[in-house]
């Protein structure tokens, strides 16, 4: 199986976030016309969101210089962990549109 450019052997440098990106690059994703998870307006600085940085298996949440949490939706595995950890007061969460998002080939 071929790897895309930027592929980094995960065990060469375990702290390299590219390892995770490369792993997500192995999955099949179908484009969605809108992000299915959003940080609710005015909530980016909410402490509850910080939990998502730790729990998200795809590492899609990060903290910016202002101490606010940012979300990149590409690579979302639709597991629901962020919703359970942070709650629906801070996250708008629905599944991607029909046919969009991750399509597991093994599962």
């Amino acid at each position, binding site marked *: 199986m071929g790897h895309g450019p930027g592929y980094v052997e995960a065990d060469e440098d375990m702290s390299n976030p590219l390892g995770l990106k490369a792993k997500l690059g192995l999955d099949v994703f179908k484009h969605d016309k809108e992000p299915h998870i959003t940080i609710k307006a005015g909530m980016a600085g909410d402490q509850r969101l910080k939990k998502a940085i730790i729990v998200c298996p795809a590492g899609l949440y990060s903290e910016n210089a202002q101490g606010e949490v940012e979300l990149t939706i590409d690579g979302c595995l639709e597991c629901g962990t962020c919703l359970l950890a942070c709650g629906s007061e801070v996250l708008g969460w629905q599944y991607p549109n029909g*046919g969009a998002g991750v399509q597991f080939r093994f599962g």
Partner: protein
Amino acid sequence: MSQASTFDVIVVGAGLAGLAAAYTMAREGLEVLVLERGEYPGSKNVTGGRLYLNPIRDMFPDLWAKAPLERHIAHEEVCLLDTEGAVTVRYDGAELGTQPYQSYSILRAKFDKWLGKQAERQGAMIVTKSRVDEVLFENGAVVGMRAGGEELRTNVVIAADGVLSFIAEKAGLREPFKAHDFAVGLKEIIELPRETLEARFNLQGDEGVARLYMGDVTKGKFGGGFLYTNKESISLGIVAGIEALNEAPSTIAASQMLEEFKLRPEVARLIAGGETAEYSAHVIPEGGLHAFGKFFGSGILVAGDAAGFSMNIGVTVRGMEYALASGYLAAQAVIRAKQKEDYSAAALSEYERLLKESFVMKDFENFKDSLHALENPRLFTYYPRLAGDVMRDLYEIPAGPKARIFPTIRKYFSVGELWGMGRDMWRLMKI
């Protein structure tokens, strides 16, 4: 656009619960529509995985001979992982290697797609790429749903839409989630040539191995690691409590936990040369009996993960049998409801009665305190360390004379330590 009630029942979700229900109802001649948001059944579904057949074999007698299962699990292993070193116990019971086999490793994208075909063959209609957006009510009863801008009406809905079950939520059947009741599983499929895999794990033919890891995997937090051999790949992953991940002593990202697990020499040698083909993650309901919502309402039933039917009792983590069984039992309730032309909550309560009669609710009743019993940090730090220490002292031959074994080992079992172990044991006896 409104549509007449051409379907007896709409099933939301083509996972194991939904497809088991669809298959069973279509077989009885009901008009069944299954709505699945993925490209194909299984495309959104993840397991660790292994499926135990005994509890559900007779519910689907015609399915198993041709089912695309991976390997029958003939070897059960538990590995206590300390920071340095590991103690592994392997069980090779004769019954594990004798037909009919107790359990199989399984890949959901393959299996669910196949099960979908079986349901279609019985006459069920599966519409993929269809996300349900709204539940339609009339006089307090569920009468259909809106999916892709279209209104679909029906007599009864089976919500088999997975652990987050927005359908059950919209129907007012469950309380808001508590993170404490859920774990997250992260998994890689690592491909290895069949011969390499069989030689490496000492497997004959289609035999497979299941190995659970406890201890350093989750850095002392609630959870563990797992490894299952498939035909030509390994399912390797970790499970961790969602709340525990953000608790002291350490906060390490879940994805990093999996990477460090893979780097453990005990694990690295098993996956060496393998190529990761897929990375997946999924939430697992683990709250059990204490976390259940309602299983039925007027015009609606809830099955599988959507109903919270998954259970962690330490050495076994199960969900798929409960999904298949609850789908089957929901189907039975709907079949009876159709005979009486009565889809009220009272009529559909038959589902709960069937669940209570079956292994499903009996298991959840029996193991209602198991999650609490397992949430003991000592199980994930103290005992793996103790096992390693005892083994090291037993096997070590120093340059000088070796100390007598009993006095050496006894230091681990002082009155204070034994008292602590007794308390842990007392707690575990609730499982």
